[in-house]
């Protein structure tokens, strides 16, 4: 197991790179969801104001 994480000595570059890449994958999804929630809330508030 330790051998796997060491990655032949390249682990200290490899794991941060994977953390960054897949961190961006997760972040993009979270940011998109937040943006959609915001837009929905704004639209709902507008609907209530009109009725």
């Amino acid at each position, binding site marked *: 197991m330790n051998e796997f994480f060491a990655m032949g000595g390249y682990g200290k*570059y490899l794991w*941060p*790179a*994977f953390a960054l*890449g897949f961190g961006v*994958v997760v972040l993009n999804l979270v940011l*998109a969801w937040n*943006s959609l929630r915001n837009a929905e809330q704004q639209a709902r508030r507008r609907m209530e104001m009109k009725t």
Partner: protein
Amino acid sequence: MNWTWFHRFASPPYVYRFARRWAPWFGGVAGVLMLIALYGGLVLAPADYQQKDAFRMMYVHAPSATLSLMVYSTMAVAAAVGLIWRMKVAHAAAAACAPIGAWFTVATLGTGMLWGKPMWGTYWEWDPRLTSELVLLFLYFGYMGLRAATEDLQKADKASALLAIVGAVNVPIIHYSVVWWNGLHQENSKKLGADADMAWSMVWPLLLMLLAFALYFGAVFLIRLRAELLRRERNASWVREVLT
């Protein structure tokens, strides 16, 4: 040729419902494929005879880099469609692309730096591929900045679309930079078929990861497109229908 599908995609409520329906499927399949590709790339694939385990960087760096270009191309095409046919949905689609592409450009540059240090001995070099990818990041920033700074939505759509289209000249420059100029960055190593220079056990996780990232982009894009459409069409009657 039958163009009704094209006309349907010009209708915001149709596109909104389409996006709501399909985003979870794109995202779900992308997530499963990513996990399989990660296992294939990190565990099953053997270490490279030259780069040893450092070659595994490829499984995160190459898909990010591909997306950074694919998202920009999508954005430029959508912007052009928006300009030519005055299609609101197309402008919304272009705007939805920008933040996604910018983040993947950051991931590309960051993972590339972490690969460059052990392989080239430096995090950064003003190599043609690296420099043109950095320009791509500034193009995304310029696009988003221009939209944010322009109050009038129609003006913002037009001006940012022009910027996206002009900036598209950078896409082939990035792609061919490794062929046209001698830099540090290697050429694409993914050759398939008889003259394949990578073992299949190394190639399939990469191809799967590329597919997974493309599907993932589809999912995030559709979510952001919904948000864009809601903001633009907040006074339209269909918004009330889809939210209640």
